[in-house]
């Protein structure tokens, strides 16, 4: 995995709360056996009409959303299914970070493991971001700091080990394999 240090981007905004992983990537696209190519169907049922034509009013179809690497959403983003296809689809589309006041557990964990930064902020920061789509923000992983174009700096929580892995491009499986001695000792103990 590529190390991540800082991210500078305009935001795309989806104000809906409780955006579930069935919206992020509908089940009919889960029959894939690879990780690639899911970005095309990200938010498919919001993004395209029945004929597969992009709906002009959907955020990601607007010209100003092109190239945005940060997605801002309402409370409880990523609830529902454990499908890792959700962060895969967001990453494949081009997003590198998601911001919300609350991010569902499994989605957050899946995102961290794939290099999609889950950034949890307070209500008023999120409200500001929702009201200012396209804002230029900076996310610095080392200091766990989100900087708004107003200059406001907002600290966000991130699990220490995940941050370490993301900053250094370390994969967690390697870490676990390095614990084989302890794992074998546990198996002998029980």
């Amino acid at each position, binding site marked *: 995995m590529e190390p991540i240090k800082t991210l500078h981007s305009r935001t795309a905004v989806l*104000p*809906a*709360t*409780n955006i*579930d992983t*069935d*919206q992020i990537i*509908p*089940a*009919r696209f*889960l*029959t*894939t*056996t*690879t*990780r690639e190519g899911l970005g095309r169907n990200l938010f498919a*049922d919001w993004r395209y009409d*029945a004929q597969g034509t992009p709906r002009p009013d959907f955020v990601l179809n607007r010209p100003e959303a092109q190239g945005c690497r940060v997605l801002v959403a*309402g*409370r*409880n983003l990523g*609830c*529902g*299914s*454990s*499908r*890792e296809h959700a962060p895969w689809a967001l990453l494949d589309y081009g997003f590198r970070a998601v911001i919300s006041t*609350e991010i*569902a*557990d*499994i989605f957050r*964990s*899946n995102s961290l*493991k*794939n290099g999609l930064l889950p950034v949890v902020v307070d209500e008023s920061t999120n409200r500001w971001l929702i009201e200012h789509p396209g804002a230029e923000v900076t996310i610095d992983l080392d200091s766990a700091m989100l900087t708004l174009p107003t200059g406001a700096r907002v600290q966000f929580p991130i*699990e*220490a*080990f995940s941050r*370490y892995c993301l900053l250094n491009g370390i994969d*967690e*499986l390697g*870490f*676990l*394999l390095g*614990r*084989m001695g*302890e*794992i074998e*000792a*546990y*198996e002998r103990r*029980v």
Partner: protein
Amino acid sequence: MPRAPQTMFEKVWDRHLVTAETADTPAVLYVDLHLIHEVTSPQAFAVLRERGLPVRRTDLTLATMDHSTPTRTEQVFGGAPISIDSAAKQVRELETNCAAFGVELLGLRSAQRGIVHIIGPESGITQPGKTIVCGDSHTSTHGAVGALAFGIGTTEVGHVLATQCLLQRQARTFSINVSGRLRAGVTAKDLILAIIGKIGVGGGTGHVIEYRGETIRALDMDERMTVCNMSIEAGARAGMIAPDETTYAYLSGRQRAPKGADWEHALERWKQLPSDAGARFDKEIDIDATTLEPMITYGTNPGMVIPISGAIPVKKGDVVFEKALAYMGLEAGAAIKDQLVNVVFLGSCTNARLSDLRSAANLLRGHKVAKGVQMLVVPGSQQVKKEAEAEGLHTVFIEAGAEWRESGCSMCLGMNGDLVPKGQYSVSTSNRNFEGRQGVGARTLLASPLTAAACAVRGRVTDPRELMNG
């Protein structure tokens, strides 16, 4: 010094620590049972291949196929091909991976196949005190026997295949204490829907729920599984219920449950599991079961739920709420009763066990599915199907005009082509009413098997108590 009182979750957690968590690193948690299915495993096996790693403990790994499998008998047992090419490929890939890595697979034609969360408890491999994971969020179901069971992503599926362990931070604890008797016609499904309505779809985030109290103790195992199943719908990764005599009676004699002296030893261990008196939970709420009614959802997440005699709330100016109602084609302030129903789905890991089919069949007996309504009955496993047929339940469904299928996830998420047509109303015993969950533009109303059967008979949203005999 005596040990501080512990919750059941803390006991199971502590007993599975390979290494404890520190400020810098999460705990390494050992996994006793890893369940696998076709949708969330291919990319994990690919990682093993890339790195030249074996499956570390094939004896603790069990695979089945359920999400993208067909439910039409001719496609399962006859020569008819699976209609969706990519689904067929996924099924073949699981077969190839299990064969290559030596993992036991309950394959398409196995008599033990079924929805992964139904066959775990049914076979007796789901046991109290175990840590159980699966690349599926409804793994919480297995917590009904007092296991710590939760869904993981595909990267983590790879971690468990390779090391039998996961990196985890310890969750917080949440006690939901339920007291009083459920009234006739009010089921475990109604209880869990009411709980989600109360705490919200994010109410359990970061927590493991323990369901406690006399109402929970009085539930049978199938009902307890329905409750734990939907923990994830409140945002909690796991739900647990302390094992008791009901649990032991259920597990005793099952194919993969311990036998003889092993059973006695297991029983001794299991009896230590319930939360100690005085154990502290991070969060606690009380629920009075006596006032509950049959519940039904009206919106696009399981927290948008009301008693069946109730009216859809009015939330002027709440755009998200109004968007949900627009999707559903329902009006704020309107009664849900008598709403038109086009499709009824009796199935899923929430409500497709034998007792679910029985309760729906009892209500349907002597009635017909209303004209114009499609009712699909999909047993949770091949064993449930067999047992239901032995009791003649299938004849009740077929004579009423419902379709009787082979087991699988089916219309719960529509991956296999069992879909609700656009714009139609589906009363479903499954767990998610998200937009498009049962098909593009499908409008899902979640309810109990009893309510679903009553809705099938009338072709309208109906309180099952109006049709219950005696």
